């Protein structure tokens, strides 16, 4: 691959006077973009430092950063890198990098480089000089060969007549572009078009710089709205958003894995042959971070045995219950008396006893989350549902708005917070209107409309967007006085208190281009995914892949004979995307979209070399695996896989120390 570095060091005639003019120099180099990702940093920095040292100059420091033109990140990195005694910054970068530094630094900034044009070489692959971006594409007239780039004279009305034996008169190495155009059109029997086309005139005013800059700034604004990074994958929610919520038919058999939450697996309380009732506790939380499990049907326990877990793929101990179809309620399922007089500890106990976990996907035990060691002032409810395709939370909010508000009030009381904010993306105006009308007379509950952007619903993004607070690296929302909860979880809190009902069912969206009849269903925990798919009419064809959850963060499943869990918000069927990774070209897109402001390109690089310390130093643990980097990668590198592996290896490395 060619190196399209856009700058080169100035000659000594310019560099020497530049260096001689100051002292306490800080040399800052950009690690370049659009080049093979081989060396981790570039040689010009050391070369310049060498020249300066030869002149007897004092070097206050050197730093090599990635993508200097990325102002948001460079600002932060510069603060860390700039030595206190530096008096002058000398930048090795293209003109963009130099001007970014000049804009943000208080010190005098000098350029040690000239920027080199690579006009016509665009796109991600940068293999050939192809498109000059003239704003008036001629390719339709010329058989897909560009006369602007390929003809030395950029002629648009045919040959100049100077070509000899098919070679250009300006450059004898080069084919005559118009001869290539003619040959290609003739092969397609289209040569006559050349004669019938009117004379073309190039209109240089087509490239409207004002339009371009306003376009670019509007797009950047969208990308940087609320927090850095993120993206706008095509939503495709229309497949299921207008289909009303329905109760899924009673499953004949449910399989309830004892591990479907973050933390220790629960201990079974029942054995094969026993009769259980709806809502009866069948699994006891084993430890502080664990969760209770309850029967989602009444009937007979047919087995307590290892069954395939949908997200881990491993066999885990599960309780299998054959439904008797009666849904006979267990005596423990009854409303609490005087719910308003319940203390915070009472509520925590109920939340724990009723097996509540985060229903947004992570399934973290709710009781643990609510028992904060630090003071909490705000409870944020996540009603963003920023994952494409999914509409489960949307329907929960439409159908159970009162329960959600009740649950939020309970949460506020439990954690002692003053304020509750329900954040909903602006692609759900019906929900926003409904919640606003229901909360207009509640002083401490606010509805916040957020722009649709993935991953808006991630805890840290939500906090930044709603409150402008930054959760520290490695920290939790409670470090900034916030508890974040999913709207479905809060609805379950309401059920637990108002009805005494444990978490035995949830709303699941079954959707995707390949599902015959998408829909939103209230599904018993433990219902086989297979039943959901076939009830929705099955799939449209065999070229299909499945995920539990959304397309961005969902878990791929190959076997549909697995149960719906407490954290299963969707079952999606889609056309599998074929791709083959190629080498990283340092295009910087992953850095541009990473909402945690990381440099994801380094993870596969370091993981491939087994450099786990490097992975750690690039703050792999801050990654929440939202998949933005995977989604945008121009080289199709499975970055998230490298991150997951990296996290494991870093943890192993630390245990060893």
């Amino acid at each position, binding site marked *: 691959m060619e190196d399209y570095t856009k700058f080169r060091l100035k000659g000594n005639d310019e560099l020497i006077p530049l260096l001689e003019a100051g002292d306490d120099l800080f040399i800052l180099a950009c690690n370049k973009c659009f080049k093979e990702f081989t060396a981790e940093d570039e040689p010009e920095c050391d070369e310049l430092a060498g020249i300066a040292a030869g002149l007897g100059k004092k070097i206050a420091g050197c730093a090599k950063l990635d993508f200097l*033109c990325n102002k948001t990140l460079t600002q932060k990195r510069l603060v860390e890198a700039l030595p206190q005694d530096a008096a002058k910054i000398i930048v090795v970068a*293209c003109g963009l990098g*130099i*001007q970014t530094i000049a804009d943000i630094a208080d010190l005098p900034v*000098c350029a040690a480089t000239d920027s080199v044009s690579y006009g016509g070489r665009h796109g*991600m692959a940068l293999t050939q000089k192809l498109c000059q971006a003239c704003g008036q594409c001629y390719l339709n007239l010329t058989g897909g060969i560009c006369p602007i780039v390929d003809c030395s004279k950029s002629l648009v009305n045919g040959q100049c007549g100077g070509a000899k034996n098919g070679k250009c008169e300006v450059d004898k190495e080069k084919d005559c572009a118009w001869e290539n155009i003619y040959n290609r059109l003739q092969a397609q029997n289209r040569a006559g078009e050349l004669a019938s086309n009117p004379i073309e005139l190039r209109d240089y005013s087509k490239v409207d710089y004002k339009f*371009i800059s306003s376009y670019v700034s509007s797009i950047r604004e969208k990308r940087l709205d609320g927090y850095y990074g993120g993206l706008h994958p095509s939503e495709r929610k229309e497949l299921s958003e207008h289909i009303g919520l329905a109760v899924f038919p009673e499953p004949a058999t449910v399989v309830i894995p004892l591990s479907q939450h973050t933390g220790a697996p629960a201990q079974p309380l029942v054995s094969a042959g026993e009769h259980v009732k709806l809502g009866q506790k069948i699994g006891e939380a084993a430890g502080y971070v664990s969760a209770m499990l309850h029967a989602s049907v009444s009937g007979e326990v047919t087995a307590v045995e290892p069954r395939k877990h949908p997200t881990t793929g491993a066999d885990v101990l599960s309780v299998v219950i054959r439904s008797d179809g009666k849904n006979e309620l267990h005596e423990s399922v009854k409303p609490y008396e005087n719910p308003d007089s319940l203390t915070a500890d009472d509520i925590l106990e109920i939340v724990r006893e009723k097996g509540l976990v985060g229903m947004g996907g992570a399934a973290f035990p709710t009781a643990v989350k609510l028992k904060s060691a630090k003071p909490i002032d705000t409870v944020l409810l996540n009603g963003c549902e920023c994952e494409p395709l999914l509409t489960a939370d949307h329907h929960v909010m439409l159908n159970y708005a009162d329960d959600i508000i009740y649950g939020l009030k309970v949460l506020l009381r439990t954690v002692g917070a003053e304020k509750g904010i329900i954040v909903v993306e602006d692609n759900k105006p019906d929900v926003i209107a409904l919640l606003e009308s229901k909360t207009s007379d509640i002083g401490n509950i606010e509805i916040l409309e957020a722009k649709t952007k993935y991953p808006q619903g991630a805890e840290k993004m939500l906090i930044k967007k709603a409150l402008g607070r930054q959760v520290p690296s490695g920290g939790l929302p409670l470090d900034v006085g916030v508890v974040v909860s999913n709207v479905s979880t809060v609805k379950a809190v309401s059920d637990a208190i108002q009805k005494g009902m444990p978490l035995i069912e949830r709303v699941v969206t079954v959707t995707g281009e390949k599902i015959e009849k998408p829909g939103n269903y209230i599904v018993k925990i433990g219902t086989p995914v297979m039943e959901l798919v076939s009830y929705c009419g099955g799939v449209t064809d065999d070229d299909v892949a499945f995920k539990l959850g959304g397309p961005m963060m969902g878990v791929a499943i190959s076997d549909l004979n697995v149960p719906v869990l407490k954290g299963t918000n969707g079952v999606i069927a889609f056309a599998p995307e074929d791709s*083959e990774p190629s080498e990283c070209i340092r295009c910087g897109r992953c850095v541009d979209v990473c909402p945690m402001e990381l440099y994801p390109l380094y993870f596969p690089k370091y993981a491939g070399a087994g450099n786990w310390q490097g992975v750690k130093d690039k703050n792999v643990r801050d990654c929440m695996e939202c998949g933005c980097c995977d989604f945008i990668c121009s080289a199709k590198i499975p970055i998230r896989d490298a991150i997951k592996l990296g996290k494991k290896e870093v943890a192993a490395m630390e245990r060893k120390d």
Partner: protein
Amino acid sequence: MLITQLKPKETIASIAGSKAFYITCEGCREVYFPEEEAAQLREEAAGIGSLVTDYICNPDNLMFQLEKHMEKLNAADTIVVFSCGVGVQTVSACFTGKKVYAGCDTYPLPGGQGVTPLEYDCDQCGECHLNSTGGICPITACSKSLVNGQCGGAKYGKCEVDKDMDCGWERIYRRLEAAGLTDSLLYPVKIRDFAVE
């Protein structure tokens, strides 16, 4: 990284044959591509097949993505590509015997060649002037790309060519003044060398 805009509907209707196959590249994703408008156009046009993919400027990736659709592609009378000019040419090099048409016009991002283009900042002129201008580029910040100071046409700090634009040379002067570095403007007269590349 380029900006693409759809050609007018009528143009696209006139080039697409009765058996058109549509290839849409969203490689630069939402960043520089009118995704929704292209989808609508595709739907209305109802060709014999359609492929929405990304980064077709990478020939290896393109071939990989095309594999599944080869039957329809071979049957198509025209292939209409919604992408920048690079993508159209990559596709057309794969199907030299077929009519491959561009559904978009491509615009440059002059000066925005970095990875996160924010402003028209660097024209890649090959002889960086930033050292004497306080880190503000006179080639891009001045409408006339003057390298030896103001033209004299600015009024109240605004450019005479474009009244919405600040005079680049006034910005340069103000920044140098604030840093106490106005002496750096006392360089010999500069002549731009367009032969540098």
